[in-house]
């Protein structure tokens, strides 16, 4: 099992959800986050005054999938999240030892 963690543009969450749904991956956790990548934010100007927007609003999507679905899931996420512009985000893949269903107590069922 792997935990796929994607940091994406806020408006891309619905597209990613749909794309994952099409490859039969339905569970996900979505969190509002702020951060910056290589572009380190940017400077905005309001009424002639500059202010630094260093932490940009992004969404973090977490999905746990079985090993055989990792590539499919990543392609779905990248395909839906990409605009080709700076700031499209990142995808990380992290190994998961075990997962439990709290209601049933089942182990390693995604």
């Amino acid at each position: 099992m792997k935990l796929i963690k994607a940091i994406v543009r806020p408006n891309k969450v619905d597209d990613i959800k749909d794309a994952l749904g099409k490859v039969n991956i339905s569970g996900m956790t979505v969190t509002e986050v702020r951060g910056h990548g290589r572009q380190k934010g940017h400077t905005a100007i309001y009424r002639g005054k500059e202010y630094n927007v260093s932490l940009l609003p992004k969404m973090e999507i977490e999905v746990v999938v079985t090993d055989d679905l990792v590539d499919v899931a990543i392609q779905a996420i990248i395909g839906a999240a990409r605009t080709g512009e700076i700031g499209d985000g990142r995808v990380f893949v992290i190994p998961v030892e075990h997962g439990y269903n709290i209601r049933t107590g089942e182990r390693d069922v995604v």
Partner: protein
Amino acid sequence: MPVASPVIDRLNLMPTSKARDLETVEGRRMLSALLAAARQEFVADIQRGHGGTTAHARFSNRMDDLIRHIVAAAHSQTPTPVAVAALGGYGRRTLCLQSDIDLLIVFDGRIGRPEERFVKGVLHPLWDLRLTVGHQVRVLRDFDELERDNPEFLLALLDARLLAGDGAVFKPAQERFRGSSVECREQILEALLQLMEQRYLQFNHTIYQLEPDVKDSPGGLRDITASRVFASLVEWPAPPSPLDRDNLDSAEDLLLRIRSVLHLEAGRNLNVLTHDLQEKAAETLRYEGAQPQQRVEALMGDYFRHARLVGRTLERARRLAGPAGRDTTRVALGLNLELTADGVGFVDPQRAATEPASWLHAFEAAMDRGVPVSDQSLDVFQRQAALYKPADYLPTPADRQRVLKFLHPRPGLYARLSQMLDCGLLPRLFPEFQAISFRVIRDFYHKYTVDEHTLLTIRGLERLLSPDQPSRERFSSILSELRAPELLVLALLFHDVGKWKEDNHAEESLRMAQSMLDRLDVSPDGRQDVEFLIGQHLQMSRAAFRRDSDDPAVVRQFSTIVGTEERLKMLCLMTLVDIEAVSTETLTAWREELLWRLYVDTYNQLTLGYGDEMIQREQKAVAALQATRPPDLSEAELARFLEGFPQRYLALFDPAHIYRHARLSRDIHPDEVHLFVEQKDDVWELAVVTLDKPYLFSNISGVLSYFGMDILRGSAMTSPAGLVLDIFQFTDHEGFFRFNPSATPQFETLLQDVVAGRQDVTALLQRKESGLLHRRGPRRVAPIVYFDNEHSQRYTVLEIVAQDALGLLYRISRVISRHGCDVDLVLISTEGNKAIDVFHLTKAAAKLSEPAQMALKEDLERMLEEGYETH
């Protein structure tokens, strides 16, 4: 009606000697049977919908019996005199099916091993019965001083009731914690207020929760207790009225009946009336309706009405328990109004009942004085409101204007509107509001009824006046810049009235707002703003959260929807408070930041980036203008006039003004000026059409300054063909236009002369300007001169923020012209004492070079620094 229980009757008669040994199987079985029988009896009451005050009291009594058996059995463990008392809700005999058993054990002497054995003897059997016990063990001496750091215990003691043991121990303890000293009373008040504040904060200070906690929510059972405590603390002649007592008793019965269903269904101490349990409660309590949803609405309507009464009673009791409660003075306010400790009320309520037009006066007076409208007046409104039509409340145009003025955001507006809603006046003034009264929308996010959500948006706006978080200050400053914030409040009041329907509520709200706008005679400009806000109130959150607001195309599209900075500001604030009023968790810092960024990008697009977007002959808006064109304007004439002006022009002016401007452009020749001056509310508007030439903008603004006009807002546009349209809004402090019938011709003559070069405006202003410079006083706004060469492909955009002063625009534009720059577009705005001017410039038909910008910036900054006092 209570159900006879033979089991309980038999157990109650059990000899004490037999009950004494509870360690035996027989003893334990006896206690289990007692508890089971008490619960069975209570459950029967609950299932019949009768689990209210009487059933709770009976269950409490049964629990008393059980505990007395236990205490009697344990009593031999200690020689020390001891008393066991019920605390809190159990003390008040409102013990519910799954409530905790709160007990106080007081010893008259030190606590040693025998006393510990006694405590165990009491608690262990209760734990064996799987009851949750909250126990407090004290010695009598502990009550010599109040436990100030334990407010819950302090209040629970007020309801302490002796269950078993030595009355001679309990009585002195009770006398001490119920002491009538001023210090004691103040401690209790402080504890109560502290706990209330904590509790109210959890619920965002509102009664109207979609899933209320019938115990803890505002208007819930704890508030009933609080009202009674406040009332018990009042020494002066202001006891709770019989009406208050009846309200509380009736509300308590309903809330207890609901709570009993929750405890029964959940099988635990659950007091939240969730959506799922609302259906069960409505069915058990026999609410009528063919469908479950109708029964739920009937239940929730009843719940909110009672909770509201509790809230009102508590507020009154709280007020009377405070220092204001002692004030018996009456201050006459005129118009049959007076100010008392209870708030603003009527001197003659009977007369007021027949004069609905006077009711708004009571709310206005209450707002002005920062006090509520008195309960007596609210009762009058509640009884009489249904007798009158909306027009009866606002019979004259002046009355209708007063409503708008009343809606100006300021501290207390939410509280007064809530009073209006509670007494039924708001839905009479605005019958459209009735459709969302107690309206429940079930979704994952909304926590309040639609009517309350609406009022909470206005509370959000009110709170922006003095923001409690640094991140809100930026929104607060937008609010302070609005020209007519009352229009935003009016739009907020109506933005969700269409939610009585399931689909497209923005469209329905807009439809419903039409009759209100007719009734209130809202000005055409104001009406358009309100219609825009209601109809488009979801657009900004869609653009900010569901689209890529980093994409310039999204910003451009959104800026086309809003059209002007004023509407952008109103829509931004509307979006902010609308999200915030959904629940306490909805408006995260993340969302706030996204919203602000969209605001800034759109503001920049509207002010810095509008110059490149020209009106297109074939666009829809132009076709619409041509379609309604008056006969005296030819199609070609109108098309020629519009050609080359920015799109923004169409967003700024309505068709009537556009046609007037087109007429002004007719037969214009070099050095000629065609103008039109009109008064719009408190300001005057000057429209000037002429042909472009150097120093033109500076000369026109100079002539306005010469006549003492304070320029507030405006815009200037130059078409590529050289046609110039300048619009200025200004205040005429000296009354030149108002009191002088020949003002316009005089003004026109001088302007013609100045534009034609026959008069030198600089020479005319020299004496005046010098005077003005000396009157400037200390500087409060640090000047900003900023150049932007990115937003526009054709222009260098110069943005200047500076302290407003008479003649400022003239001085700025003069410096610009001296540098050989052409002023093609100008936006002028004034926000408080701050002037914000944006110029689109070219020099020799190109953007300004870096050195040219530097040189101009230096001169402008020097000019802006001149004339201020230095400290």
